[in-house]
């Protein structure tokens, strides 16, 4: 009996060693290059200690609206209320959504400590979409797996989702937003107010301490 167990352990070990390493392939090289260029531009343009908070926010907004398909993400994140919303409500919501993202993320570049995004390959998706796989290398701890879901945009690409360690930001945001709409009697205006409150809040948050 003991010999059998030992044998099976040895067999398992051999099996584990022989297992092919999961090396990602580059199915859509252009999409990978797009993410490479984007992270390069972000590090060069946004992490400088010499620019002030407003300048950093404006630079981030330009980069974000250019590289991300804000309308698609915003529509998806809102879910079904989008269909019944008036044109002016939609415009107001998308503006509040964009401001909220800019306020949430721009300040993080002020505390930049040498983190890097290293693309490791890409996969084809449906409808000409592509997934760019990357590792977010931190100063401490294991790299974080980040997958960029991109859609063709002319001769370049636009990001429609960021998937961090298997968690889609678009889906998470949709749950967050629809819970807020639902708990406020289905009013879209309540979500817009909540987003504006969040947009104003990060200025006082600890992350802002690094920008002075």
């Amino acid at each position, binding site marked *: *009996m003991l010999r059998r*167990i030992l044998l*099976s*352990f040895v067999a*398992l*070990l*051999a*099996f*584990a060693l022989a297992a092919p390493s*999961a*090396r*990602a*392939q580059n199915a859509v090289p252009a999409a990978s290059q797009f993410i490479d260029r984007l992270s390069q531009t972000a590090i060069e343009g946004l992490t400088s200690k010499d620019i002030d908070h407003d300048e950093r926010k404006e630079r981030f907004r330009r980069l974000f609206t250019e590289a991300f398909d804000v309308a*698609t*993400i915003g*529509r*998806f994140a*809102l*879910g*079904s*209320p*989008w*269909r*019944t919303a008036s044109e002016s409500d939609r415009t107001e919501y998308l503006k509040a959504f964009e401001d909220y993202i800019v306020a*949430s993320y721009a300040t993080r570049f002020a505390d930049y400590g040498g983190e890097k995004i290293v693309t490791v*390959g890409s*996969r084809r*998706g*449906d*409808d000409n979409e592509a*997934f760019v*796989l990357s590792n977010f290398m931190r100063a*401490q701890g294991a790299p974080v*797996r980040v*997958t960029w*879901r991109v859609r063709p945009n002319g001769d370049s690409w636009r990001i*429609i*989702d960021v998937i961090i360690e*298997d*968690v*889609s930001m*678009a*889906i*998470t945001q*949709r*749950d*967050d*937003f*629809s*819970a*807020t*709409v*639902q*708990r406020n009697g*289905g009013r879209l205006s309540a*979500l817009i107010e*909540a987003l504006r409150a*969040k947009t104003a*809040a990060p200025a006082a948050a600890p*992350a802002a301490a690094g920008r002075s």
Partner: protein
Amino acid sequence: MSFSSNLDLSNFASVRRACLTAVLATSLFVGASVARASDSAAAHTQIAQANEAGSEIWDPIEPVNRYFFEVNRFLDEVMLKPAAAWYGLLPQGVRTGTGNFLGNLRTPWTVANDGLQGEGARAGTAVARFFINTIIGFFGVFDPAKELGFAHHDEDAGQTFGAWGVEEGPYLMLPVLGSSNGRDIVGFVVDAFLDPFNLLTRGTRLDWTPYARGGTTAVHYRDANKQQIDDLQRSSTDLYATVRRVSVERRRAEIRNADPGASPPSPRMTDGEGPGISGPRAEAVQ
């Protein structure tokens, strides 16, 4: 975990039990991997559909869950967060070593679960990790196995049930323990009962160690994920809904044993529509 006091096993009996579990698990997984090879393709498709990213989360007792979520946030604020802040003052090397040590304690139970899931290669990796890190890595404080190409992974009974096709059941927010579901709460009890190190210490003078281990694990992860928790608290408009989605998706990915090189299953992103918003909640929204 109160049943540990009901079972007054002698030290010898505990050791024998642990050995029996190990033998049972070993023979089971060798058999299981053969038996499952034939129907694994069909089963995997089914599991993939049930655990698809972005699909609806069944939360029938949401008001109760939200109540316990607030209780947990309070407990976090007054106990876990301060404890993690103190722990965070320790040098990074000490904290990494603590994480490695805790991970190594889990590895034997991971091996058993890999086996029960018919994951022979993953079980082999975990066995190799356990021996390398226990012997060369000073009882698991260091992780030389990683340098040798044996990457860390965790398995537990809830994941095994999931791999067998058991559905999540209702989403549950447990007091103190946090996010769970009908399947994983059963898995948690099985884990606490059958984890080899818990079995070894039961009924001995070391029977307090599983609690110390649980507490240390909680503090360690609270410290390791401090930044992410702060970010979520700051940016979400409904923290409960956000935490629910993040924890469910992480769990589903663990059960899929997602290949890091594969593109994640993703819903279509068209105008205000998606699989996750259909069903009962969509009606409530409209």
